[in-house]
């Protein structure tokens, strides 16, 4: 199946986030690998996703799950070899699946040879590849991101007797992007992977590339200069490839990362995600509509990336203190579920394993403006284990069947990189792909269906959005339009049945065709259009004038 040649392929994509370590082990060592992942590509193709976002797989001491990189041009031996990766990449492309990989620009592992050299002496040629200081008082006021573990953004290096700057863990020193050599080398690394055939990069932690005194060291103009340069080179040498920004910022602060369509192609809409959860719990669309009202227009070639959950905590950085307290009280009453400024739980446990709410949230994910990302395992409703420390509780092995190690690995269970989920609700014997494939109405089957409908409806990926504001605040309704296609989406955020009257006079004369069952609904007239909706129900309607 050939890859789509549409230059804006990423706007129609449905992305699946996966960690090779946790998906399928082919070697029997208890750790997922690329050969195993390649074996599961048929499953992913049948699910309907067309883009994979791979979490870091480069060599690393694995003190931050691979985001601490010690070699940018290889594959961690746990996961296979470069050839294994190449084989997997080709197999994915053969199935029409693109592959995005992580590119951690901001920092390396302290075990990276560059840092080992840099710290070895003040005169080393790579000294200036990192950000060093005599004191720990520079860039005062810069916020600490990993609040639970770090007390400062500076760490003392006993080798070179100076401080080095780190926005994340202290074992992840920040690279110095004021050094042209650093910028060149990072481009060469990207080029290495692009030549191999990867389809793009998720550029990790981009707001923090540059530091300047008297600022908050985030989103600085110089950062955009760096990105613009990379984008220009990407377009010149590798047209059709894509940059996805990881920038946990307010929408207005994210906007510059799109620039005039000459920086990032896509960026995660971080502030929307917690507000979807908030709106659901409040049974009030206000948090959702307000953040989207606040979201600026972006260039026509650019796209937001939407997600419900990922490998990190459900971040509550981009909410007010009142909203954060509310989210903690409603979704993480047990304090062990909280980490940094977020909640380390998977989708299904967050939603009390309520199928209706899971469907509703996925419905919004697939229909709000942006490209949706499904986190591995959420398509079958996997659970989490907060006792595994850090964010590892949401990174447990994929559950394929009810047999040995959930079908993930033939190794002894004690050798697995992480324990499997075992409890009667979320354990692998209760929640797995194999059992859900047998039933037409399983969550997995439903996810396949909604992805299929999403992909066959261009308005979702490409269209505009116009909110309707029915007086019933429990109902979130909007219209998506693209070319001749008009789609009406109505979501009941409430746990109770609701009646809602929609002002659809501008669409007078159209009939509504519900997209899943393809049944027709009454024609739109002058009067408010009355819909009655069950708890957490949503509708997708195509409007047709006949």
């Amino acid at each position, binding site marked *: 199946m050939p890859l789509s040649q549409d230059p804006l392929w990423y706007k129609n994509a449905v992305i699946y986030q996966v960690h090779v370590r946790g998906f399928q082990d082919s070697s029997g060592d208890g750790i997922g690998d690329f050969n195993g992942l390649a074996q599961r590509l048929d499953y992913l193709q049948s699910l309907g996703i067309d883009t994979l976002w791979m979490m870091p797989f480069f060599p690393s001491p694995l003190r931050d799950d691979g985001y601490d990189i010690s070699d940018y041009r290889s594959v961690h031996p746990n996961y296979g070899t470069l050839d294994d990766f190449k084989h997997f990449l080709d197999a994915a492309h053969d199935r029409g699946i693109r592959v995005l990989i992580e590119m951690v620009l901001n920092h390396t592992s302290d075990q990276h040879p560059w840092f080992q050299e840099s710290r070895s002496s003040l005169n080393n040629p790579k000294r200036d590849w990192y950000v060093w200081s005599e004191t720990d008082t520079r860039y005062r006021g810069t916020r600490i991101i990993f609040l639970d573990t770090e007390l400062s953004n500076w760490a003392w290096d006993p080798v070179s007797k100076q401080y080095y700057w780190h926005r994340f863990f202290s074992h992840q020193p920040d690279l110095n992007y004021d050094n042209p050599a650093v910028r060149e080398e990072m481009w060469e690394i990207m080029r290495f992977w692009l030549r191999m055939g990867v389809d793009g990069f998720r550029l990790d932690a981009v707001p923090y590339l540059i530091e300047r005194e008297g600022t908050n060291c985030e989103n600085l103009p110089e950062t955009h200069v760096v990105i613009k340069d990379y984008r220009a080179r990407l377009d010149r040498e590798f047209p059709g490839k894509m940059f996805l920004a990881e920038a946990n910022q307010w929408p207005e602060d994210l906007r510059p990362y799109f620039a005039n369509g000459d920086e990032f192609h896509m960026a995660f809409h971080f502030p929307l995600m917690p507000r979807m959860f908030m709106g659901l719990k409040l049974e009030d669309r*206000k948090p959702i*509509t307000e953040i989207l*009202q606040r979201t600026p227009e972006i260039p026509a070639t650019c796209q937001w990336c939407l997600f419900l959950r990922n490998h990190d905590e459900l971040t509550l950085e981009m909410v*007010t203190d009142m909203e954060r307290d509310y989210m903690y009280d409603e979704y993480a009453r047990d304090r062990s579920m909280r980490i940094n400024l977020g909640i380390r739980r998977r989708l299904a446990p967050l939603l009390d394993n309520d199928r209706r709410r899971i469907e509703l949230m996925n419905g919004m994910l697939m229909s709000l403006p942006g490209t949706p990302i499904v986190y591995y395992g959420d398509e079958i409703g996997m659970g989490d284990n907060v006792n595994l420390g850090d964010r590892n509780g949401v990174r447990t092995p994929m559950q394929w069947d009810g047999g040995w190690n959930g079908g993930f690995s033939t190794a002894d269970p004690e050798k697995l990189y992480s324990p499997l989920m075992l409890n009667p609700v979320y354990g692998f014997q209760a929640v797995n792909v194999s059992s859900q494939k047998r039933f037409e109405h399983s969550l997995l089957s439903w996810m396949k269906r909604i992805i299929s409908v999403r992909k066959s409806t261009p308005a979702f990926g490409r269209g505009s959005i116009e909110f309707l*504001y029915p*007086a*019933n*605040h429990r109902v979130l309704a909007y219209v998506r339009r693209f070319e001749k296609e008009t789609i009406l989406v109505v979501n009941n955020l409430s746990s109770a049945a*609701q009646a809602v009257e929609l002002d659809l006079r501008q669409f007078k004369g159209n009939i509504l065709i519900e997209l899943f069952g393809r049944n027709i609904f009454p024609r739109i007239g002058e009067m408010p259009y009355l819909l009655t909706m069950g708890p957490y129900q949503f509708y997708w309607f195509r409007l047709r004038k006949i």
Partner: protein
Amino acid sequence: MPEESILSDDFIRELMNVGEVDILVGVPTYNDAATVGQVVQAIRAGLLKYFPRKRAAIINPDGGSRDATQDLVRAASISDMQHASNPQALRTLHSISTTYGGGAATSRGLYAILAAADLLHCAACTVISPSSINIDPEWIPRLLQPVSQGEFDLVTPVYRRHKFDGLLVRNLVYPMTRALYAKQVREPYPSEFALSGSLASHLFSLNLWTQHEGRDGAELCLTISAITGGYKIAQAFLGTKPRVDHAPSDLVAAMREGVGTLFSSLEEYPNWMASTTSQTVPTLWGEPEVMLEPLRVNRKRLYELFRSGVAELEPILTSIVSTSTLEHLQHLATVPEQEFCYSNELWVKTVYEFAASYHKAVINRDHIIQALAPLYRGKTYTFLVENRDAPGDEVERHVEELCGVFEHMKPYLGEIWNGGK
């Protein structure tokens, strides 16, 4: 039936959009544009500050205002339709207004609020007067928290009031309600109060709305219903109640609302005969206070109205009060002003005889109420003289003494209730 005319289709539709709420705030209005804007903004501030996570709504039944009253109330809403992010508000706040017409009929307004409370399954409901210009956002938790926490079903207000303010309540409505229904509710005819959802639903189901349609005094009925229904009652100190200068002509209307309703309640709630010594009601957030600023009052006018009233209304008074009471009143009407004293005992006997006559409808009931007005003025005169230089605690002691007489003489009311004068 009132529900057919008050709960219009549009109102039902608006309630549908509001949905189930935890807290409902009712603000009944009629041409209150001068004050209601300030009131609803204070309500909104109180909800945002003290109940940010609760589902809340403001319901405004309006009697057909011709000014900007309804627009001012609607302006208090918070929603995404305003297209301006409100980070102070976690939730949508509906502020809806419905017109029931018919002018300032507070019973119809209250009925609409109780209907909304019942339909929206609210846990706590409060009613705020649109003219409470001294309202503070803190009123909201003071009224609502005791109810929303499930400790009480009815919270009535107590205030810091001038010693010469609210005299009809001080000299008649409060002591008589206390004596009859055995609860020391200082403001039995409250302009702001809070109800539990269960009490609101109970009151909504009562027949009193059809009986009082078009007539005021529903708030007093509400208090009496709660007392006789065994609901848990508390009082909340709300601060200063501004003094309102009433025209003399307002007295009869006020007496119809307060006294007429109180007299009618004796028939609707006959268990007053069995009730015993009154009980105190918990008072939260502070005790009622008495303000003592000098105030010019035309006492002489009151004295003269009493005298002329007794003389002119003699044929009517003959039908209402006992012979001995009439003789005492006529004697009092001849006493020089400096010696005038309408004693507590005579006053209570007067009121009870009026109540019994009202029950027997010896003459038109409205005429009975009107006939009480000049006598009340005489009692007011005595109160003003007795308390002219009195400090707050002495004023309170005088009120307490009057309450004692009402309670002590209740058996007399029982004797004359169904018997002769």
